[in-house]
């Protein structure tokens, strides 16, 4: 654009992202995404988990600095290459992430200006700081005491403080990533009031949400991302929910999923009336009276979006939820009491947890030690370990699951994501479970490894294992499950058999619509 100066008129968008690509080892997270944003507009960004929304925003915010992504970012027509988050902030971009970034021990006012305190000769000018925060909060109609430590506030109010913090930087571009996940209905209204006001002032906003209802209420335009590509951008008023859902899921299911031929046997596992309380917020229920059964040789899929209580449900059944819970669990028809994961393992429940780095693996130990950890007593010995017996079992598992490594004595942290996931799977298979829970078994691994895991899941079901699969990737649930239950905000909103589970119907239940009679 030689005529750069000349084109700087009202029709130039405030922000343009052109053919953005971003690759992680083995995974192409963004593949030529284009996105633009005008002054005083709320542009919604929707898509399934893993579609690339958060990655795109991290590129914009300088979390992934310039040479780490492909494509260009233009602000008011001029290309910008942010080397870090600070540079992006200076360009007027402010991001409110899903996970709160507040310091719980500091007061509301201190949090709002953390790292940017008004100073004179290095001494904080508290009067100015409190004055400015007070004005900001009054402007937002927030009735929060400035001096309260943030930790004493409810999650919803903390979220609003986070927004105040972002606004204190007077951003031109404000990114909100699932801002209403923790808000009550009244708080959502407050938030929308604030957003409308900001829009009137000319602030441009990118609004990421799973809740389509909200998106339709607040946004001017809407872009759907799928598998790291832009599916389409349109004025929100020209769209409706079914069309957006179709764009979100519209992909070839099949091919990468093996043909299933499971013979279903008797019920080996049943959970009734599972209720789980949020350990941080007493009284808030993450899961409410959910029940399900799993049969021998069957894959039961649990679908639901982020925050629907899927993982909490499994964690609670497994005896690993930190907060209060109530549950009735039957294994092989007999009621069992599970207070700790070792009870669960004793009763034949295996759990391939989500987030393998945090919950699954000891990264600095060998593949073998990771594999044998859960079943150590059985594989090795009650007190004295037998390394040769372990090595023999581990090498067999490694061969069966086709783990690519020089030997089982390779350090687990050096493996690729797919192979790490297989190590976690092997760990649980070596406990000889009757029921196997899988939570996000293919998160962050490449397509080839995914396919192998899918094949493995089917093989295990054929050998008579009951499998409970939780995934936020809809095609995965649809492609593997014989039966599907859908969770939304901690409750079951639908149940499907393989035959009548269409992506649209499941997604509709997952976004909060109860299942309509067929």
């Amino acid at each position, binding site marked *: 654009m030689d005529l750069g100066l000349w084109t700087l008129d009202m029709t130039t968008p405030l922000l343009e992202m052109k053919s953005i690509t971003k690759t992680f080892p083995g995974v192409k997270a963004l593949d030529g995404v284009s996105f633009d944003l005008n002054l005083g507009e709320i542009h919604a960004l929707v898509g399934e988990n893993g579609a690339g929304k958060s990655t795109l925003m991290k590129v914009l915010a300088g979390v992934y600095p310039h040479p780490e992504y492909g494509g260009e970012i233009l602000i008011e027509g001029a290309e910008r290459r942010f080397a870090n988050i600070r540079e992006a902030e200076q360009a007027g971009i402010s991001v409110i992430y899903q996970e709160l970034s507040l310091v719980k021990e500091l007061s509301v006012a201190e949090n709002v200006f953390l790292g940017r305190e008004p100073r004179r000769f290095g001494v904080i000018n508290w009067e100015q700081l409190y004055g400015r925060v007070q004005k900001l909060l009054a402007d937002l109609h927030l009735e929060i005491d400035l001096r309260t430590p943030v930790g004493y506030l409810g999650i919803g109010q903390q979220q609003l403080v986070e927004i105040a913090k972002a606004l204190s930087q007077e951003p031109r571009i404000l990114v909100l990533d699932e801002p209403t996940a923790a808000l009550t209905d009244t708080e959502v209204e407050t938030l929308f009031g604030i957003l409308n006001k900001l829009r009137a002032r000319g602030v441009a906003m990118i609004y990421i949400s799973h809740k389509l209802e909200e998106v339709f209420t607040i946004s001017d335009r809407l872009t759907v991302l799928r598998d790291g590509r832009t599916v389409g951008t349109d004025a929100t008023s020209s769209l409706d929910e079914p069309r957006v859902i179709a764009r979100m899921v519209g992909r070839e299911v099949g091919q990468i999923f093996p043909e299933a031929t499971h013979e279903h046997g008797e019920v080996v596992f049943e959970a009734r009336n599972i209720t789980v309380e949020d350990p941080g917020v007493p009284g808030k229920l993450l899961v409410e009276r959910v029940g399900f059964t799993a049969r021998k040789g069957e894959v039961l899929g649990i679908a639901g979006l982020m925050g629907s209580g899927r993982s909490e449900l499994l964690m609670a059944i*497994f005896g*690993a939820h930190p907060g209060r819970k109530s549950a009735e669990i039957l294994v092989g028809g007999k009621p069992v009491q599970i207070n*700790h*994961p*070792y009870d*669960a*393992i*004793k009763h034949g429940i295996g*759990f391939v*947890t989500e987030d393998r780095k*945090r*919950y*699954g*693996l*000891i*990264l*600095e*130990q060998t593949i073998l*030690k990771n594999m044998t*950890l*859960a079943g*150590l*007593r059985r594989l*090795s*010995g*009650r*007190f*004295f*370990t*037998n*390394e*040769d*017996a372990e*090595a*023999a079992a581990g*090498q067999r598992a490694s061969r069966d699951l086709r783990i690519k490594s020089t*030997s*089982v*004595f390779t*350090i687990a942290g050096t493996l690729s994501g797919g192979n790490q996931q297989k190590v976690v799977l092997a*760990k649980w298979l070596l406990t000889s479970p009757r029921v196997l829970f899988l939570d996000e078994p293919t998160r962050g691994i490449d397509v080839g490894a995914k396919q192998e895991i899918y094949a493995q899941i089917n093989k295990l079901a054929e050998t008579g294992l009951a499998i409970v699969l939780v995934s936020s990737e809809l095609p995965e649930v649809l492609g593997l499950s014989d039966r599907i239950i859908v969770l939304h905000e901690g409750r079951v909103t639908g149940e499907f058999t393989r035959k009548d589970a269409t992506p649209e119907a499941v997604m509709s239940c997952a976004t909060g619509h109860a299942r309509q009679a067929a």
Partner: protein
Amino acid sequence: MRYWACAASCIELFMTETSRTGRFKIRTSALRAYTMLVALIVIWLFFQWATIDQHHPYGLFLGATNFSKLLQQMAVTGVLAVGMLMVIVCGNIDLSIGAVVGLAGGVAALTQGRGLVPALLSAIIIGLIIGALQGTLVAYANIPAFIVTLGGLEAWRGVILKLTKGATIPVELPFFRSLGRDFIDPRIGFGLAGAAIAAIIWINIRRSRARLRHGLAAMSTGALAARILIPSVVIVAFIFLMNKAGGVPIPVIFLLAVAIAGAFLTANTTFGRYLYAIGGNRDAARLSGINIKRYILAAFCVMGALAGLASILHTARVGSASPDAGTLMELDAIASCVIGGTSLMGGRGTVFGAVLGALILASLDNGMSLLNVENWAQYVVKGGVLVAAVGFDMFGRRKT
């Protein structure tokens, strides 16, 4: 006078390790310990060179008499370091053991009148009870180990003052004293060496049969021979050296027994495996069905009992129990672990490394004393070595 070579390879007794594929090879996780072994040899050579004079044309430091003294000096720290290693590996710390050594030693001295066995047992039981108490507070009451044991450091020292009324109590029983000062008969030394070599042969043959039974690749004859010969030669050389100075010192026998038991416990039991798992990733360990609280408690109990044993060796060597006995010993034990490659974040470290760390510290102490290095400089050097060891490790790791 090439004793140092024999002594150096003696250390390998702990660390020779064949990879499970059957070939003879260095374990990567022990690499830090190997660099420290090189550092130890450099330190030894330096002191050997620096102590050359007209009476000792080959140097004094590694002569049988001085080397025997050096090992006696490190025995107490070494025993404590083995216990500390287990506490640190599962992600905790014990700052109270110096005070526990003082208290248990004081109790042993006070109960001498009832006989030798009650005196020694009471020291170990006191250590065990304190370990169990502190471990319970850490594991079940969720109070950070740093706080619990910092409190212990103060409180147990206070209890000593109350019990001993501030007085130093001499050790009266001759056998008690001899535990810290005497040597085992050279013939018994050879007997022990023979038994150890027989055990090494038996373990290796059993192991190679077990490998075949589990369908793993067989060990080559060369590897098998190396696994038997190298430690055997080291053991024989060590015994010869010690016998030149009157036999193996009794505290060194205790240290060797504790080190071997500790190495076995950490490497070949479910207890040891779980400690590393808890320190390596607490969440993953819990989700794998490990009763984290129970194992943390157990680690503190082992630490306490070893502090009791160390108090016996220390009191016997000094010949009396003073109210300030054991002061700062916890820091020597922690420094030994860290120099030997233990991560204070938990999950990483070996008993061999911890004992090696204690040996390095004792060598610096002993060598600098021989050279009449002033007291202040000794502290500065030891502090510098600790920081340098960790800094070197960090630098090495960043590159890989």
